[in-house]
């Protein structure tokens, strides 16, 4: 029986890759060496690469958020916006200037004291489209999706509060068989 050549092995390199550690000791030793090497490499990471990684993380978190219903007390739109602005700008005022809104209005939206107006989200859409152009694929409508997803989840999770009162106001005058 012929033994496999190195070429055959490489052709099969993606068929049956077993990458498990053989023992806890081996795992701990490999992890320590890897961490040491990574920390050395991290020292050379440029500010630009860090910003790129953070923005890609933000995009992936936004995508994950709109894929599933999430009933919690967090202000997702405002929190994502805060991360976006603080990742790119040294001060929030600079972002406010760039999208031609007042710093007060920005602060109100970020701190969830006021809902963003359509124009605000549209400007944010245009801004992020430009920012993500050279970073990764980005659906510009995602800001709207996050905003409405949060509204929907929030409304549905508070049914017990609003439904009893509003049900009294809703009648069905026509019966549909």
């Amino acid at each position, binding site marked *: 029986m012929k033994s496999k050549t190195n070429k055959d092995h*490489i052709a099969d390199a*993606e068929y049956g890759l077993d990458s498990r550690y053989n023992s806890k000791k081996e795992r701990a030793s490999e992890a320590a060496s890897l*961490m040491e090497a990574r920390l050395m490499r991290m020292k050379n990471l440029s500010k630009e690469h860090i910003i790129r990684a953070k923005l890609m993380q933000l995009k992936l978190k936004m995508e994950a958020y709109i894929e599933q219903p999430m009933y919690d007390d967090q202000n997702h739109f405002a929190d994502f916006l805060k991360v976006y602005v603080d990742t790119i700008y040294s001060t929030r005022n600079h972002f406010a200037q760039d999208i031609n809104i007042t710093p007060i209005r920005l602060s109100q939206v970020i701190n969830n004291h006021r809902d963003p107006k359509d124009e605000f989200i549209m400007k944010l859409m245009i801004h992020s489209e430009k920012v993500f152009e050279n970073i990764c694929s980005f659906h510009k409508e995602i800001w709207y999706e996050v905003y409405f997803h949060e509204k929907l989840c929030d409304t549905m999770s508070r049914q017990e509060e609003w439904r009893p009162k509003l049900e009294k106001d809703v009648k069905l005058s026509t019966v549909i068989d």
Partner: protein
Amino acid sequence: MNVIETSSGKSHTVEIDPVEDGDYKTLRKSRFFFDWKQEKAHEVYKLQLSGTSEILGLISLENIPEEWRVHIRLLTVSKGNRGKEKQFDRIAGNLIAYAAKIAIKEYAEYACVSLRPKSHIAQHYIDKYNMKLTGMTLSIEVPEILDLINHYDHEK
């Protein structure tokens, strides 16, 4: 994300989802190299052509938050997609890029995907995925991990 049909060069959209309990009985060792039932305690993902139920590849992951790392435990393409006679190309690459997305989502600039192949195939992963070798472990980190994701994310 997409795979390329080697006979025609045609691109097909794929989906990567968690393996469900019902899938395990279809994951035969003769087709997927390992006994995947043994991986039930871990995060296991399957790659399928969009709109079909045929599984073309599998990956098992261990998330290690204290090290900002996602370790690939097992990885395989299906038997019909191995070597030169493969039906589709980019299956393993998409699965590794998926692990990279999980790592970036969790750890941003600290993200790392690692694997520990046998020495004779390590060079394949270094050449194809731009991984770095430390001891016996291969890893991909920022900035290369961002390029990997963009390469396999067909919308970019």
